């Protein structure tokens, strides 16, 4: 059962020119036709380089940016069609953990007030409708007490104590701030948490603490995650399913192990080969595919396959003109969930199509 299902999602930002006349001269196609689904209790990892649209995708799910086209089905309801007020109510089920833990916490609010805010906005806590004392001071006290209990519980889940309540964000270290950001998402008891680069601002040793915490919380609370990150090693470590994005589109999607063992899209292969491994023996012997050039502008994406301008395996004609669809590959019998957007994925995998030496320097460091 998929909790979140995204169908052909598009987010285009207009480029405007002119002082007197606000003309739209083009669009940045930040997300351009992405379809994916996330099953309940699983972690979906979205990986890609800066400018590939992964953050915009995450924000579009929460409707923090306007959706140009497509559907976002959360538990069967289409979020894309909701009006502002209904969406606001829906957000208690979808929470976000942001990249910059200091920037996403109000420096003038203490932790207690930051964490209570969501509960108060959504009117969570206190005795159920029709129970307990009616409106009045007594009821308000009960509500506040219950909300406080929830906040403390969330703090304890992330490894902080109730003493944090009266403190301010600047009094905490980076790792602790990120824990507070996670507690803020948890306190509303959401079904889905979108983590946008949850650890990239943290030191290595703290990163591991936060990653372990996210995993522990998922085990305890049955959370569903959408983890967005640029670090393939981090994404693979936490995710059940990994999606690789390039220039606004999903180019490959597979289970973490599948993707590592048989990456099929040329972009995934080069991305994988570029990730450094902390082991000199591996570093010295493995093959590296160095891509030439930079990411093209999403305002003017290449025709056909988005990757064809940098692809070492590019073939004549078809790659330049026809945009490949994300299609299932491999053995469907073995629970085949491997999808790839490349016309020649199988031929490249079997070695039938050789890479073009001019497009990429292939470097194989000899052993020793």
């Amino acid at each position: 059962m998929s909790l979140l299902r995204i169908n052909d999602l598009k987010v285009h930002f207009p480029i405007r020119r002119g002082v007197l006349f606000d003309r739209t001269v083009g669009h940045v196609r930040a997300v351009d036709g992405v379809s994916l689904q996330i099953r309940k209790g699983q972690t979906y990892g979205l990986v890609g380089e800066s400018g590939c649209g992964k953050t915009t995708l995450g924000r579009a799910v929460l409707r923090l940016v306007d959706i140009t086209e497509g559907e976002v089905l959360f538990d069967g309801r289409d979020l894309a069609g909701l009006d502002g007020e209904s969406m606001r109510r829906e957000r208690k089920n979808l929470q976000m953990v942001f990249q910059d833990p200091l920037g996403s916490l109000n420096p003038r609010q203490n932790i207690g007030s930051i964490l209570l805010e969501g509960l108060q906005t959504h009117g969570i806590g206190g005795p159920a409708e029709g129970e307990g004392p009616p409106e009045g001071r007594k009821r308000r006290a009960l509500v506040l007490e219950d909300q406080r209990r929830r906040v403390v519980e969330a703090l304890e889940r992330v490894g902080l104590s109730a003493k944090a309540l009266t403190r301010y964000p600047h009094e905490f270290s980076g790792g602790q701030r990120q824990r507070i950001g996670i507690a803020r998402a948890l306190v509303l008891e959401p079904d889905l948490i979108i983590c946008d680069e949850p650890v990239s601002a943290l030191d290595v040793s703290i990163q591991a603490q936060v990653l372990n915490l996210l995993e522990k919380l998922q085990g305890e609370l049955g959370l569903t995650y959408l983890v967005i990150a640029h670090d393939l090693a981090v994404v693979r470590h936490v995710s059940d399913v990994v999606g690789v994005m390039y220039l606004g589109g999903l180019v490959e999607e597979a289970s973490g192990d599948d993707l590592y063992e048989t990456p099929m899209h040329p972009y995934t292969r080069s991305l994988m080969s570029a990730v450094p491994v902390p082991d000199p023996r591996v570093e010295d012997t493995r093959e590296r595919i160095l891509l030439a050039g930079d990411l093209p502008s999403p305002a003017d994406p290449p025709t056909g396959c988005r990757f064809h301008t940098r692809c070492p395996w590019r073939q004549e004609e078809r790659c330049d003109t026809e945009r490949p669809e994300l299609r299932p590959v491999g053995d469907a019998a073995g629970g085949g969930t491997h999808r790839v957007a490349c016309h020649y994925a199988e031929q490249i995998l079997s070695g039938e199509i050789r890479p073009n030496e001019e497009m990429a320097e292939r470097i194989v460091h000899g052993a020793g």
Partner: protein
Amino acid sequence: MSSSTPLLAVDELSVVFGGHGSDEVRAVDGVSFTLEEGRVTGLVGESGCGKSVTSLALMGLLPDRGVRVGGSAVMQVPGGTADLLKLSQRRMRDLRGSQMAMIFQDPLSSLNPVVPIGRQVTEILRRHRGMRGSAAAKEAAELLDRVGIPDPERRLREYPHQLSGGMRQRALIAMAVACRPRVMIADEPTTALDVTIQAQILELLKNLVTEEGTALLMITHDLGVVAGLCDDINVLYAGRAVEKAPRAPLFAQPTHPYTVGLLGSIPRLDAPRGEPLTPIRGSINDNIAWTRGCAFAPRCDHYTMECLQGPPDLVAVGAAAGVEGGGGSTGAAAEHVHRCVNPVRGADTADRSAPESPAAVGEDEEAQG
């Protein structure tokens, strides 16, 4: 130059910030290492360990006031040797750019946004090589071409904001290598870049070292980058080197608990999935002064009372932890030292399992304290 005399020998470098009533901060506390021709030396550590301050001190870029720099950094310069820490500003200006160069982390903020790339590159050629006009422009275009910037003539006329991140870093490297410096310092040169661009830049740096024989000091927090590039590695913690080794023994048999912890904290792309990470508990703020004992003790799983009996010395790793599978570990620098009285033995690294809860408890205490 024989390889026995290092190009730059840094000995007991220390940098102290402070004065005016506030507590002194010993950012760098007795760091020693050498740079040799055609070799890459790495300084690794988390934020706050003093790695960037070390590089600024060597380049003479620290402010004069409120900073005390100690130790020595003797560099081979044309016509003898010079201690970089004691040279006059004027003499340093001559050396910077011509004999030593630096590549910074953030390429956008280290380029002047209102000056075209061409002017910024030719500035160095003018200052150090006395080139003018079209000769300088031609040389600048050649430099950009050498670091892999396509269409260099056009790029020379452009401003930094018109270049992509990877291209800016290349332009910076072009400026750094303009006078063929013998020592290059790269301070987190790829941290702001995407992995595919990072791979390009690392390859470029590697080529510079092997082809030109430049000595490179690589400062980074990324152990993956270190594994691929550095020959000798210094792991810093709280201003001191805690472990020091050629790369093969360091990664095969790390002995300091901090190094072991760092390696256990990184999710590896080639590791089987589902293995939990073994992080170091607490944060870099949980340390004690080196004078009282090992600064890492509060976060260490192996510490005993012995660790708190004064500062531990940098000692050679016991014969038991010999060099294994040593690819490029031959040479004079094949020495593995650490600053620890309770090092991790080979067997421990395998079955080391950090308890889950102490990490949270450690942070808890800090929040309350």
